[in-house]
């Protein structure tokens, strides 16, 4: 029999859920514990260049030096970039579309050198600007999950 065109093209559909247990490491654990129990943001400082990393991690990449000194940074900071998302993207927690509009932002917390990525309460682009000051809004019940323990950042009235 010679090759012939199929009367239909078959597509096989399957979900591929894989449960993981990711270690946070010592730095990540201390950071999330301070957030959960004391509503504090901790950073870690490179002994070589002095850069303060939030979230904290073991190594300063540019220096290739082990970070060594813990510092508390503010729960307020400055927005360095933002985006109001208007498409219903897939929520990684549920696999379902997430409600929009929805604002992502980078916030440089007072005393930190890196930016933290989180959500902003404001979704009107006209009321958002780079350089605006914002403050973390904490959840009443906190579990050590930064996306839930910090509900979002809201604008600080000047």
């Amino acid at each position, binding site marked *: 029999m010679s090759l012939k065109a199929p009367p239909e093209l078959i*597509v096989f559909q399957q979900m591929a859920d894989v449960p993981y247990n990711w270690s946070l490491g010592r730095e990540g654990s201390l950071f999330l514990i301070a957030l959960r129990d004391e509503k504090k943001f901790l950073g870690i400082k490179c002994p070589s260049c002095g850069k303060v990393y*939030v979230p904290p991690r073991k190594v300063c990449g540019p220096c290739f030096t082990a970070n060594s000194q813990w510092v508390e940074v503010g729960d307020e900071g400055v927005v360095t970039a933002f985006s109001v*998302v208007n498409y219903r*993207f897939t929520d*990684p927690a549920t696999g379902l579309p997430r409600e929009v509009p929805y604002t*992502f932002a980078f916030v440089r917390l007072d005393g930190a050198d890196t930016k933290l990525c989180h959500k902003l309460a404001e979704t009107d682009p006209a009321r958002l600007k780079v350089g605006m000051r914002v403050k973390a809004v904490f959840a009443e019940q906190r579990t050590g999950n930064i996306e839930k323990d910090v509900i979002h950042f809201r604008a600080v009235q000047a």
Partner: protein
Amino acid sequence: MLDEVAIVGVGQTKYERRKIGETFADLVFEVTNKALEDAGITIRDIDNVVTVSNDFQDGRTISSMAVMDACGAFGKNVSTVEGDGTLGALYGLMRVLSGAFETTLVVAHCKCSEGDQDLIWNSAFDPVYYRRLGLEAVSASALQARRYMDKYGVTGEQCALVPVKNHRNARANPWAQEAMDLTVEEVMRSPVLASPLKMLDAAPLSDGACAVIFANRWKAGRMTTKPVWVRGVGHCADAYYLGDRDLAGVDSLTGAAKRAYGLAGIVDPRKEIDVVEVFEAFGYQELMWLEGLGFCDPGQGGVFTAGGNTLMDGPWPVNPSGGVLSAHPGLVAGLVRIAEACLQVRGDAGARQVDGVRTALAHGTNGLCGQGHCVWVLGG
């Protein structure tokens, strides 16, 4: 590295939103045969293979092993790069340069239509600090675009010039997915995806594959195809966490370009490079990458593009193929830039050929928001 290794064959599929009739291995088989035919050789002339694929896109652990038959690697030395196609090409080039191999086939495949792209790109992020927020490629790039435009005063209209140009160029490329005539106003009026990015600022999703064959000087001299020599290549990467980087900066691209230009003996890319193919998943990225490649100063990409410098009839045509905005088959896209630059040097680019190309630049990017870059300088 002048004239040590040549590209002797290239092959591409047509890029389409949904190639429902082919498996990803079918696409690999198609482009492998096209590249062999282009080089005028058979699979017996290939002594090793580098495949490029992504397990999350393919939904399969070590999915590279699933294309061994289709790329002619049966019984051969084969290895894999999971990253942009330019990095697979870099590995293939190194294998020939090492002297251990004479002819390397590099083949990349991706079917963006088969997996949920939001979830796959979301999975590129750190699972603890970024992933649960829901960021993926579009929203992360929107944050980068905002930072870039805010830092330098680049306008949405300047960014919109890129999709207008590239979709127009794509009309001359039979492999492109989205060829169309657009105006800046149409781009600006298209729905906002994630501010400041609009629908027409963004690349489509594509299915496709691409293959490139590298040969040493001795082998290249025995082939009928005009050899295209690898004059220089450079790769450089920035920090993983987006919050560690100044997203308006292009330090890693500047570093990659400096290394490639150094090997190629290029002092001023504006004087020595005739055509450019860059990996621009969004309009603003082409502006940024031109700054990093040294075609204009930091922050001047918008002004440079508005001056007509990158048009087909401008002094430095950028993305005559239509670029990634006209077809985005994921990590295949960088290898496509090399294949297209190669065709330009050979004079085989058909209706999208730029006149008098002696030296072409191909650029690929790896990771989110241009974390890493790979720059290639090819010459005849």
